């Protein structure tokens, strides 16, 4: 009789199932190079350890360029979806403002991220911090593309700027949470001992992005001007928009 025992086939361990204590590069998947935007998208969604490892390797600049290209394209595409609410000039104004706004917000917050990461004990070099931020932006905008069909459906079925603003904000917040998780894991692998300073940074980044949406208004609605004449705090702007929406609804009693 044969003594062959058939062992159950065990699938290989996924690299992103490994605990964070396992150094980057230990799993063979980590070392697969990222050759362009498509592999960058695959890595950042399915193999974040691979993305993190490649951001520390010698070809980091090309990985950063790929992630940046992914961010720009996805931000512009999502911006077009945002612009379909009002149509007309907003079809190009909204994408331009969203892409520019997110990029400028990241640039404003980048120096503080590098300093805070050093204060937390991280061994990250400046280029690695830039790579992690490009990963944050890339992952955020990739997920926004995932929400784009939902956003489009809602934008065709309501005329309320306040409702659409709230919806886009919710999608952006969810997407940013995943982006933040990528950034935080990146710093964990770069020996950051304390997450406190990095948590402060993400709060600053979120506040800057929210204020940027008000500084660059209107993104969803329409206006005669490209940029606002009046300077406003974002909470004050949201409150005014919500009050205006409520009074319009009371006046007409109908919705599109």
């Amino acid at each position, binding site marked *: 009789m044969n003594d062959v025992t058939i062992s159950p086939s065990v699938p290989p361990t996924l690299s992103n199932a490994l605990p964070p204590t396992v150094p980057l590069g230990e799993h063979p998947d980590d070392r697969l190079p990222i050759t362009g935007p498509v592999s960058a998208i695959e890595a950042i969604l399915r193999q974040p350890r691979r993305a993190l490892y490649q951001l520390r390797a010698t070809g980091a600049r090309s990985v950063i360029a790929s992630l940046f290209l992914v961010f720009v394209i996805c931000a512009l595409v999502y911006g077009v979806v945002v612009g379909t609410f009002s149509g007309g000039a907003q079809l190009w104004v909204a994408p331009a403002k969203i892409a520019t706004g997110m990029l400028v917000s990241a*640039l*404003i*917050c980048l*120096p*503080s991220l*590098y*300093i*805070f990461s*050093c*204060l937390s*004990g*991280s*061994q990250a*070099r400046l280029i690695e911090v830039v790579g992690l931020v490009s990963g944050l932006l890339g992952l955020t905008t990739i997920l926004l593309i995932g929400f784009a069909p939902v956003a489009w459906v809602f934008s065709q079925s309501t005329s309320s700027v306040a409702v659409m603003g709230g919806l886009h904000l919710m999608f952006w917040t969810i997407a940013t949470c995943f982006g933040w998780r990528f950034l935080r894991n990146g710093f964990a692998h770069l020996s950051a001992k304390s997450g406190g300073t990095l948590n402060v940074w993400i709060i*600053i980044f979120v506040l*800057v992005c929210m*204020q940027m949406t*008000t*500084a660059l208004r209107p993104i969803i609605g329409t206006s005669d001007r490209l940029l606002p004449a009046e*300077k*406003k*705090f974002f909470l004050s702007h949201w409150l005014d928009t919500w009050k205006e929406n409520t009074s319009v609804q009371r006046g007409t009693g109908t919705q599109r």
Partner: protein
Amino acid sequence: MSPPADALAPHALQQIPTLLRGEAAPIQSWIAKWSAARLGLYVAVILAGTAMFGAAVGSWRDPVQGIYTAIKFPLIVLLTTLGNGLLNGMLAPLLGTNISFRQSLVAILMSFTIAALVLGACSPLICFIIWNTPVLSAKTASSATTHSFILLTVVTVIALAGIAANVRLLQLLRQLNGSRSNARRTLFAWLAGNLLLGSQVSWILRPFIGSPSLPIQFLRDDPLRGNFFESVFRALQRLFS
């Protein structure tokens, strides 16, 4: 592969991240070995970081005020360090941290370097906040509230920079004298002295933002009248009234 931190040239910028991380071994070797080039690096970083922050703060009033404030912020740090240098050097051994005058000066400059780096890194954020606030004008009804908001934001950023710098200084003092209580006593004594002198130096060197009802000046006509703590209390009253 980069060289170890304690093998870097005294003027090398690569030692700055090491300072921020608070790596014990290289920092202790820098304290032990006097180097004018390293001191020069710290002063240069203090000048750059605090000047950037000062320029951001002062630019809300006027670009000329931005230039004046960019000059005055570094002056506050350097005048406070030098003004209290003798006192800090004497207090350290009296409170159990047996270091020389030079070493106490280097330790304090290291902590101010960390603070200046945090201030410099936050200066784009301050610029962004100021860009989003109405121009400082006597005519706008909300200018007093806005002025108080900007003032308190600036104070908060300075406080965060101070906390980061002093956490590292405390760690360094613990490593130098091996006793937590001596390190804490020395730090608090230095802080008390620096706070007292620094706050009054900053009051004398006002304005940093300025008032729209007053002309743009490098120093007020009566620089020695009043003090820093009165000003913060009045700003809090205006914001919450």
